[in-house]
């Protein structure tokens, strides 16, 4: 047709459309919900594996609409328990490992769509505990992939920790992984945190690793002094250093280097806060705490409450 102008939808029309979509979504949700609820009552009777697998699929369909339905994850486990019973009683011939691995695929999709659901991650662990031959390397691979998409996903870090333990805990591997993540991004607090728990386990009483750690964390905060992550980690390294016999010399060296950074970055609060910390550990200082606190109050007025308390001390 000629000369017909395109008509953009009015606000009311868009509103009506959205409401229609919403009503349809709700209707679908209610339908799937009712089906899963009905399934639950049927679980009390003897169902075949085929029927149980159908019930499992019904759960998955509902979860796709909302992964937070914890009672549906519970129902999946009830169904899987029944499947296991049926198979082990040899009344039916099905490949349990295949079914469980199928579950892993479903969970993988769930995780991709909602990587921060506690219920989803727990279900994955539960499935892996059911498997005779879990592929732990694959699970580590999943963690590597997910943490490359969101390096701060604490569910995934926790999952990696758990998988690592199941594999016999290769602490060197875990340390190397944190090295890689921190090299990628100095502000990856999750990686620094994990490192703080891996290193003491890896080295035990032998504190000689602290020298390399000091060099490495300083590289991070010299490069990006505004990133708080390395500074928090540094405090912990210094606390660990205090257990060494040469702690006094180390503190002196650290203070000298910190003063150089303060000269280079006089408007950055982190080196100054850390200077106060080193003084509290007994490091010699050219400047007294009060003078440093006065600077901090000027640079970081938001935290005057904290600084005033430190002044009182």
């Amino acid at each position: 047709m000629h000369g017909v102008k395109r008509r953009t939808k009015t606000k009311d029309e868009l509103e009506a459309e959205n409401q229609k979509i919403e009503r349809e979504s709700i209707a679908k949700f209610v339908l799937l919900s009712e089906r899963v609820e009905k399934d639950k009552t049927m679980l009390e009777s003897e169902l075949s594996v085929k029927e149980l697998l159908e019930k499992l699929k019904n759960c998955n369909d509902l979860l796709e609409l909302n992964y937070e339905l914890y009672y549906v994850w519970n129902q999946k486990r009830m169904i899987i328990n029944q499947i296991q019973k049926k198979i082990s009683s040899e009344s039916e011939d099905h490949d349990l490992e295949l079914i469980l691995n199928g579950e892993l695929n479903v969970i993988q999709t769930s995780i991709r769509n909602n990587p921060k659901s506690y219920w989803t991650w727990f279900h994955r662990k539960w499935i892996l505990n059911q498997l005779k031959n879990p592929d732990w390397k694959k699970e580590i691979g999943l963690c590597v992939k997910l943490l490359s998409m969101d390096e701060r996903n604490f569910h995934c870090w926790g999952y990696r920790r758990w998988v690592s333990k199941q594999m016999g805990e290769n602490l060197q591997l875990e340390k190397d992984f944190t090295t890689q993540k921190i090299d990628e991004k100095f502000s990856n607090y999750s990686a620094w945190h994990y490192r703080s728990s891996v290193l003491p386990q890896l080295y035990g009483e032998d504190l000689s690793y602290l020298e390399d750690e000091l060099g490495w964390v300083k590289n991070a905060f010299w490069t990006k002094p505004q990133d708080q992550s390395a500074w928090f980690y540094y405090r912990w390294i210094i606390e660990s250093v205090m257990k060494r016999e040469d702690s006094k010399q180390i503190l002196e060296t650290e203070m000298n280097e910190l003063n150089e950074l303060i000269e280079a970055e006089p408007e950055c609060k982190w080196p100054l806060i850390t200077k106060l910390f080193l003084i509290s550990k007994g490091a010699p200082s050219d400047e007294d705490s009060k003078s440093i606190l006065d600077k901090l109050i000027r640079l970081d007025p938001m935290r005057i409450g904290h600084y005033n308390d430190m002044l009182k001390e």
Partner: protein
Amino acid sequence: MTNNTNDVPLYVDLHKKHIRALEKNKESFSYWAIEHLRVSGVYWGIGAMDLMNALGEMDREEIISYILSCKHPNGGFGGNVGHDAHLLYTLSAVQVMAILNALDRLDIDSIVKFVSSLQNEDGSFQGDEWGEIDTRFSYCAVCCLAILGRKDAIDTQKAAEYVLKCRNFDGGFGCTPGAESHAGQIFTCVAALSILGQLDKIDADLLGFWLCERQLDCGGLNGRPEKLEDVCYSWWVLSALAILKRLHWINLDKLKSFILQCQDDDNGGIADRPGDVADVFHTFFGLCGLSFCGYPGLKAIDPTYALCADTIQRLGL
């Protein structure tokens, strides 16, 4: 507390309207999106109304009936009618009944049996029979039993020991031993240790420092380093700081301004950050934050139990 004349006011009437509407609007998708945790939604809604001195505007009997209908035969409460029992919703249910002064309507023994049955040998708590362990559940168990006056039903020493195992290099706490510090987990652990009488085990200066560094230039708080601000951290961070007696380490004026900006001035409610969609969770925790900031007209909130101070007094906690 100074009043920044640029601050928008607290739209109390709009928020009350928003909360009262939540129960009724089955046509909205957001009603269905939280149907699995409706019991907690009721707690957040009732808690918010209580903070605004508007508890009388809610139908007390209807709410009590609803909560009781979520009870599971095993003594615990599910997130909604017919849903499986879980510690999260059991705590919310008990909190609602505490606010409404209706604890006598509960079968306390059966709740205590359910909660105590979830403690493991190492002192940790699982959320339900399926076994997920998290310090959130330690808090749920300990807080719930404290409200019911039945802390004796669990091994409190072991409960505290497990929480302390979750302490990190930065003084904070995670959900399990070795897990990263997160403001939400820090609240649950600090509050649990407070209830268990073991606050002295916390390095309050170290943790207080980490917590006060959650405040960003916009005045809002984040939950971990390098993350975005979110109104709900007004609760998790502030309550932990309040328990540690270091609330003044946060700039409360700037936080107050931030929370007020997160209000929806059309439909009421408070969102996670300015301009986003409001929900009852952020409304409650935003109001809690404002209460900590001393906002006039709001009741005082107890940082350990997340109940108004007058409820705490009535319970003798």
